[in-house]
């Protein structure tokens, strides 16, 4: 699972009001190269929750993203876009867990696939 997906996902447990962002527990993180596409990044940028991406990328061992939420003028900087690209699309959580921020319920991640199935009493 890439941080792009992490940035969209929230905990869906019944009664949870703020299930975003899921906390990441890393057992194994990997990197996979993806073609760089500035158009996609620019289109995606306004929808990204920066704080969540920043924290997630640090948890995954990547410390190059700026602390402050960048304003859209940064999208003209190739250097910024490449870092954004790397954090969003090339870092994968391979083994570990996603943790619901409200209940602490863990969603295990195996072979890169988060198990988001809810138990019957969570629906």
């Amino acid at each position, binding site marked *: *699972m*890439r941080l*792009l*997906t992490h*940035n*969209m*996902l*929230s*905990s*869906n447990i019944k009664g949870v009001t703020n*299930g*975003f962002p899921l906390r990441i527990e890393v057992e*194994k993180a*990997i*990197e*996979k*190269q*993806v073609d760089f*596409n500035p*158009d*996609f990044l620019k*289109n*995606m940028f306004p*929808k990204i*929750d920066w704080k969540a991406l920043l924290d997630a990328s640090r948890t995954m061992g990547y410390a190059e993203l700026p602390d402050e939420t960048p304003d859209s003028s940064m999208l003209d900087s190739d250097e910024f876009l490449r870092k954004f690209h790397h954090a969003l*699309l090339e870092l994968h959580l*391979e083994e570990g867990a996603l943790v619901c921020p409200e209940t602490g319920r863990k969603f295990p991640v195996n*072979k*890169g*696939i*988060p*198990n*988001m*199935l*809810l138990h*019957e009493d969570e*629906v």
Partner: protein
Amino acid sequence: MASRPELKAPPEIFYNDTEARKYTSSSRIIEIQAKLSERALELLALPDDGVPRLLLDIGCGSGLSGETLSEHGHQWIGLDISQSMLNIAVEREVEGDLLLGDMGQGLGFRPGVIDGAISISAVQWLCNADKSSHEPRLRLKAFFGSLYRCLARGARAVFQVYPESIAQRELILSAAMRAGFAGGVVIDFPHSTKSRKEFLVLTCGPPSIRSELPKGKEGDMESCSDDDSSEDEENQTVCISDRHRPRKKQKITKKGKGREWVLKKKEQMRRKGNVVPPDSKYTARKRKGRF
């Protein structure tokens, strides 16, 4: 259809390791799913600006439908309830992210972030009650409600479905409308038993020009058989592409980097201590062409 898989067992049981592999190694299924996905993507009517979008593939299975999205350059997130199907998707090294989940429990995504959704041959499964706790109406409601919330306003969702009956189609459609979607059913080749295909085309947000229903493909099999080919009714397979329709601007496929290059890169990454999927015959394989 002689036997409907939905009636045999719940999806996570029906699509076990054996069935998942069988499904994904049938060249007939691969071809049909690719065509259905191609048509669903066309019905999504994304802006024609060449910008890749973030899409959902609901009931993504082993990734056959998602591969069509990747071929068009889009990023996608796939959701499926069958671990076996997802395992095959991992093996096939699909480019989308995969989630193990049950659409009937609702989708857990932030509001308004997804640019579009497709679902190929999957939603009819929601009409079954596989467990005593399952109530199809509630599961459809949870599904469509959560889908509506996570889609950007004006975004579309296209579902290719095999409803078992008119009542079932109504059940699905009314759940979608109640969730706030506008739209309806588009039927390609309504007069052909073999090639008839149904797509539920939904638009998120208040009715607008965007929510006007596109037309289904008309006519009979003639439109997709070569003039000189003999008309062999029995052997006609599903055909939803119409040769007389002008092709959308075709992206010129970049010369791929090739298997050599990929293997070298993977080796480099391994040496850096990264975990890289094992090399297989699928590594850097040629993608199918477009239809």
